């Protein structure tokens, strides 16, 4: 392909929700897969010091990972700066920024891709489940993406490069993991170019161990009649009871005639 896409995948140093140990984030792995599906050349970008967990992403096919040193206090500015600087790819500017819809291990607010896109002045489409380059090919290239919506619904959207895409957990584009690639990966460190903050950043937000709290119980209107048991009913009665129950729950459409 003459005009190859240049994509940046934003990587975070995630942790595993169960063990709490460093682990790659599922949505970011899928972001790598989406970049491959779009046929893009990609560079991983991480705002922060090089961490061993970043090598795991290399195992999913991201050979080149850049860490921005000294970006901890303002990752948005550092990432935006690196993306527009033109120093990531030797042959051109970045067409596409890919990210997971939400990190797993930091503040996990999902705000960072939006903030980066806002800083760059690029459009962002979130919850991407699938994507492809729109045909007929245009310059700048356009992307046809499918946004995941609840209960398996999908929403098609079209957006032109340069843009940012945040990938949803249901995206099926998970690349294969190759352990040897984690060994071969190069983690490059680049200065973020940001001035050190004049005053040390003070965390105002209090944090403590997560406490599981009960959720509100679904309203009784939608609750099924609890534990109804039909023992050895005639099959017709059983079928009727099941169909009526499914209709009451709203999962089965009402009969065509009514």
């Amino acid at each position, binding site marked *: 392909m003459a005009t190859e896409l240049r994509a940046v995948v934003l990587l975070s140093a995630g*942790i595993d*929700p169960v063990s*709490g140990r460093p682990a790659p984030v599922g949505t970011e792995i899928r972001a790598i897969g989406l970049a491959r599906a779009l046929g893009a050349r990609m560079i991983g970008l991480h705002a922060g010091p090089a961490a061993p967990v970043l090598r795991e992403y290399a195992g999913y096919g991201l050979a080149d990972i850049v860490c921005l040193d000294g970006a901890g206090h303002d990752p948005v500015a550092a990432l935006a700066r690196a993306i527009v600087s033109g120093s990531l790819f030797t042959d051109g500017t970045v067409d596409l920024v890919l990210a997971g819809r939400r990190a*797993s*291990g*930091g*503040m*996990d*607010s*999902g*705000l960072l891709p*939006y*903030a980066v896109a806002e800083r760059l002045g690029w*459009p*962002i489409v*979130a*919850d991407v489940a699938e994507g492809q380059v729109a045909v007929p090919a245009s310059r700048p290239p356009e992307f046809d993406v499918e946004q*995941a*919506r609840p*209960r*398996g*619904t*999908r*929403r*098609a*959207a*079209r*957006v*032109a490069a340069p843009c940012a895409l945040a990938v949803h957990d*249901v995206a*099926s584009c998970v690349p294969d993991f190759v352990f040897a690639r984690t060994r071969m990966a190069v983690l490059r460190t680049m200065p973020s170019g940001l001035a050190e903050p004049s005053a040390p950043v003070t965390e105002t*937000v*209090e*944090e*403590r*161990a*997560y*406490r599981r*709290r009960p*959720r*509100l119980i*679904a*309203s009784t209107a939608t609750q*099924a009649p609890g*534990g*109804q*048991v*039909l*023992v*050895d*009913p005639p*099959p*017709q009665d*059983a079928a009727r009871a*099941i169909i009526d*129950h*499914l209709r009451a*729950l709203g*999962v*089965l459409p009402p009969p065509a005639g009514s």
Partner: protein
Amino acid sequence: MTGRLRRDPRAERAARQVGLGARPRFDLAQPPGGRSPGGGVSGIGPSGRIRRDPRAEQARLLVPGGDRPRLVRGGTGGTGTARVSAPAPAQVIRVDDPACLVVAIPDLPDGRLDRLDRQVLGAARVLADAASGAVVMLGGAAHPDLVQEAAQAGADRLAMVDTALPGQAVLDPEYRAAVVCAALAALSPRHVLFPDSDDGADLARRVAAHTGQGLMTGVEVLTARQAIRPCRAGRREQISAPPALMTLAPDRVAPYAGAVREARLLPGGVDPVPVLPVPGRIRASAPRAADPATMKLAEAPFVVAAGNGVTDFGLFRAVVADLHATPGASRVVCDAGLMPRAAQVGASGTVLDAVCYLAFGIAGAPQHLQGLGRVEHVVAVNTDLHAAMVARAGLSVIADAQRVMPAIRDALAAEGG
């Protein structure tokens, strides 16, 4: 002789006889001593004591109107029937001079407030009540009949801002965010609440990125003084005072259940209509439902699954198609190659997020039940009354799956034809 009075039932009965027809007729409502002169409540019993009829007295105290019985016990009674009160007009709570505004921006799927939207309004109520502020519901211009619903859900004001692109079928989330930002700038609220749904969270993040205001996503606990949300992969939680922007996780804050609010209409529309620097960068179409037959199991709303108790898989697939459901299976079935591995429900298969799960001939091993994590409604068809799946089910049918499945097909076919 004791001092006790002896009743003569025959004489009492004779005293109640009315008319002298061929058949004797008796007025049993008449007090045994004969009608008292005023026709009043109380008769004099044979003992000379006043006899009360509590039921009749209560009936007289009853105030007509209203759907719950109301008794007025103030007076001596007997005036009840004259007291006809009109049903009291429902009390509407007004906030005329709010100290601050709390904005709730519901999603309004299908133009109505859904469960989470109501919870968002309930949360906004919590914040507004603590600061004697008013709740403003933003959005819903396309649905003018929403006013009553919003009033019940706790909205003091209604800013019916149109967030759709004028005269276009495509949705532009950037335009929507720009309109909301402009509307918020005009209102300058203290807090803004969004539902933590896909669309709500998208809008909240756009607004936060654009305005640079603090955003807390997925708030799980919200009081007037603090908001708590999970962070660090759900292992820790963040506590802070309620920030300017929040998205509320589902089923965490109760919807408003108090008296109807005013839902006064604020001047709708934003002036001037925001103009995007580059309009139409994102062109999204309306969401379309996926085909249940090919949908991913993890996302499917309705899953019908087969276990070792199903022998006729052609029939099973036909039932699944007739029910417009997504097929699932237990591990035994997948191991036997009767269903694809992608259909396996359970610990080593897929964890469902369905509304309803219909299990044919599945015992409900712990490894299988793990896959039903969040499923609210389970229906089981099993020959074993003591199967674990039956214990988990809201409706269980103890019968042979091979006989129930064709009956379901027949019943659906009879409806269709």
